[in-house]
């Protein structure tokens, strides 16, 4: 092993407590990383992953104040103030040339109005001569395969393009260490796959990469050499990635389906809530279609008829949309960034009206209804919780919707209490929602809509920013509720569709590319590829066993469903 001095990144006994918190965010974190290696950092929300990144890139203690101890060495040089011979720490200008950081949401990182100025920003700040900046920007864009974006406005880029531009802005400064904080969180599956391929290539060319990611299964595809698993601010496991499987609880970290199959066989069967609204009404379950009989008899809850929509006349966002949402439907809406998924569901709540065609809500044209009237029938959870939370306490936040809809006080209290239970917000009722973590805010935003008891629940990326354990728990709880007549969720997580949906809508370039039962739509890999949806190991495993199981299910449930055939559940390499 190389000497400590030569290693690009060494973290020694690092602890940090934020000034306004009682407990340390991280405690005694130590690890070393060689050049050309990838370190995967996994752990539940709030386990200290982002704090660790901030300590390495210098934002702690410069921007975030608190109690700090331990050392971070970059190529043998200490970066943090304190310790023997303290010189006040390494200046941020120096750190930023060694360590490049790509944040979870590229929108939070991109500063430039155009791609060229965005990528040039760091070099401009370092006072690099103009000709050199132009050369390095061109080189970086070409390296990432996005030279064609050079003169584009950053705002109009797709999620995947924004992520690459954010990375270009970092790479142009030629850091030797890359810190990636959940770089896949806002990407569609195909963009995530491209980003991962790029990350592997960067490591293979000598960069040292630290990647924080909830989507562990995805990162494992690029074979990170080392993994670090954190629980409540402490390192639970650090070592070769091969050892991660044994160290983590598969309920907390999402592992590839074959690994879970093997581990779950030895555990008691999971308590897995089959969607009650669908199952109870139609006897259908994930992976199965709702019986045709019920569709013909009942009037659709929502019906799109030849819907066309465009913000600018020359660029249609939706066209030829014909679909009906029936009682009992649990619909997963899949598709790439910018395909029109959010625009589609905004028509269902009446926030947008079609330019041509009709959207009918229980037979009434949404043009004749106010959004507030529609809210009685359709509850819509927005993607970003910070755009809706305002009340001084969680309790008041959850009561806001029902009050607007004219519920009596008793009903409001009942609904609020139920929503708190379902979203695991007990104990937080009197906290200000805006003071909670992102994951908790997201749960409050879902609870706020649940408390309205609308007939149809619509969720836009409900699991974004949530750790695996939390989102599986609340998805189970929500899908287990008998209150909703239909549920529709937009997601990039194919496994969410596999586990919970009985119908999949594939949206691509403003049209519906496919609409049908998951077992049918998700089995067409060529169609998925065209729509930038990447099959997962859970999907592949479910498809493999579908003739025996008859339906899709989570890996834990699948392990027990196959318990009679132990030879079929031997661990295999991920199919993908």
């Amino acid at each position: 092993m190389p000497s400590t001095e030569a290693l690009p990144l060494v973290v020694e006994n690092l602890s940090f407590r934020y000034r306004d918190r009682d407990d340390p965010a991280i405690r005694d974190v130590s690890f070393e990383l060689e050049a050309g290696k990838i370190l995967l950092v996994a752990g539940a929300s709030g386990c200290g992953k982002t704090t660790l990144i901030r300590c390495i890139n210098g934002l702690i203690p410069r921007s975030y104040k608190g109690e700090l101890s331990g050392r971070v060495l970059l190529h043998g040089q200490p970066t943090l103030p304190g310790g023997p011979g303290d010189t006040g720490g390494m200046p941020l200008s120096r750190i930023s040339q060694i360590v490049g950081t790509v944040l979870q949401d590229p929108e939070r990182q991109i500063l430039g109005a155009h791609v060229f100025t965005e990528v040039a920003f760091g070099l401009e700040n370092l006072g690099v001569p103009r000709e050199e900046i132009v050369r390095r920007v061109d080189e970086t864009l070409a390296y990432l395969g996005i030279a064609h974006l050079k003169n584009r406005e950053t705002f109009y880029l797709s999620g995947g393009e924004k992520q690459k531009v954010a990375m270009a802005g970092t790479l142009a400064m030629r850091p030797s260490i890359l810190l990636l904080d959940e770089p896949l969180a806002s990407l569609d599956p195909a963009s995530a796959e491209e980003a991962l391929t790029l990350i592997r290539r960067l490591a293979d060319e000598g960069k040292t990469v630290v990647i924080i990611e909830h989507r562990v299964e995805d990162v494992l595809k690029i074979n990170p050499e080392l993994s670090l698993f954190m629980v409540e601010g402490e390192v639970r496991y650090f070592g070769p990635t091969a050892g991660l499987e044994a160290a983590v609880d598969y309920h907390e970290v999402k592992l590839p389906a074959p690994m879970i199959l093997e581990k779950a066989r030895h555990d008691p069967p999971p308590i897995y809530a089959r969607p009650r609204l669908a199952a109870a009404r139609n006897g259908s379950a994930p992976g199965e279609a709702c019986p045709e009989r019920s569709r013909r008899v009942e009037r659709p809850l929502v019906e799109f008829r030849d819907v066309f929509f465009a913000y600018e006349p020359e660029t249609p966002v939706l066209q030829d949309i014909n679909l009906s949402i029936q009682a009992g439907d649990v619909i997963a809406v899949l598709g790439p960034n910018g395909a029109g998924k959010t625009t589609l569901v905004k028509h269902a709540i009446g926030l947008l009206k079609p330019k041509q065609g009709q959207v009918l809500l229980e037979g009434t044209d949404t043009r004749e209804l106010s959004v507030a009237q529609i809210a009685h029938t359709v509850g819509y959870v927005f993607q970003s919780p910070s755009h809706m939370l305002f009340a001084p306490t969680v309790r008041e936040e959850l009561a806001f919707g029902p009050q607007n809809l004219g519920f009596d006080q008793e009903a409001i209290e009942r609904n609020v209490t139920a929503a708190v239970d379902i979203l695991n917000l007990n104990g937080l009722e009197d906290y200000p929602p805006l003071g909670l973590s992102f994951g908790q805010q997201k749960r409050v935003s879902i609870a706020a809509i649940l408390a309205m008891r609308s007939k149809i629940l619509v969720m836009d990326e409900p699991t974004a920013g949530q750790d695996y354990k939390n989102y599986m728990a609340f998805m189970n709880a929500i899908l287990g509720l008998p209150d909703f007549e239909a549920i529709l969720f937009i997601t990039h997580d194919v496994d969410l569709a596999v586990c919970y949906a009985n119908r999949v809508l594939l949206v691509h370039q403003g049209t519906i590319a496919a609409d049908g039962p998951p077992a049918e739509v998700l089995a067409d890999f060529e169609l998925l590829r065209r729509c930038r949806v990447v099959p997962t190991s859970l999907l592949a495993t479910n498809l493999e066993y579908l003739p025996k199981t008859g339906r899709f299910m989570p890996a834990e449930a699948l392990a027990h469903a196959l318990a009679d055939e132990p030879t079929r559940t031997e661990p295999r390499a991920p199919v993908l």
Partner: protein
Amino acid sequence: MLIAWRYRERDTIIQRLDPRARIIFMLAMLFSIIQFWDLRIMLLFLGVAALQFGLARLTWRETRRAWILISFIILFMTTLTFLTGRGGVATAYHEEHLIRRLGPLSLPIVGWQLHLDITAEKTIFALSQLTRMYAITTMAITIPYTVDPSLYGVTFRGLGLPDKFAYAMDLAFRFVPTLGRDFSITLDAQRARGYEVEKLSGGIVAQIRRLAPLLVPVTINAIVSAEDIIDAMDLRAFGVGPRTWVRKLTYRRADKVLIAASALVFAGSTVLAFMGFGRLWVPEALLRLATG
């Protein structure tokens, strides 16, 4: 993420000018306009502003939302000045000729009772104020729609501001449309929870409280976004020393002519104002109406 104004590249006389020359022109016009109250001079400036707007080939469609907001603010301020009579008495006129007395009138929302004296001076002052504000905004509104957003920072640097202030101006320019977008998302999110902003009721304090579902998320988001921006800037070494501005601006002949003309207009206006020209002009017809 900060978003830019809806900029579209057009081959117009206005867009071919150096943005620094255009800012100098706008400032010269602004500081010239505010030296006068004479409606006829205001109309002259409004004409120049309209000419600039026309030469920029901006359309009503692309600027509609900005005009609606600006018109709301201008009309609100002018009406308030007209109703209260404040502003003009001290600055533009010292005696008034009564045309008609109305009242008592009950003001909506606040419920105040007031008598309204319509005088010749107050009326013409309101018209001058309206024209002055439209002239200034027409002059300014073309800037965000016709200056390439990637040139904001270097423009202000080229006008002599230090690096940090120049970049702060760049960010500030883009903050306005970003705030507008955030407001729109929050409004949609709250409407989806049955909130109806148009059904606000009660006294002024109660109404402001009822606006909390809109104002709190937008404000908090603005603060959080500002922190994100600072982090992103810090991570890329902003402010560590003198920076290079990769985009380069060069004055051409037309720019120099425009700057010279701007200086001339400003100097001429200052001299005329100093000599007493351009004070509030009340048409004879209005005075006859008052005295007759």
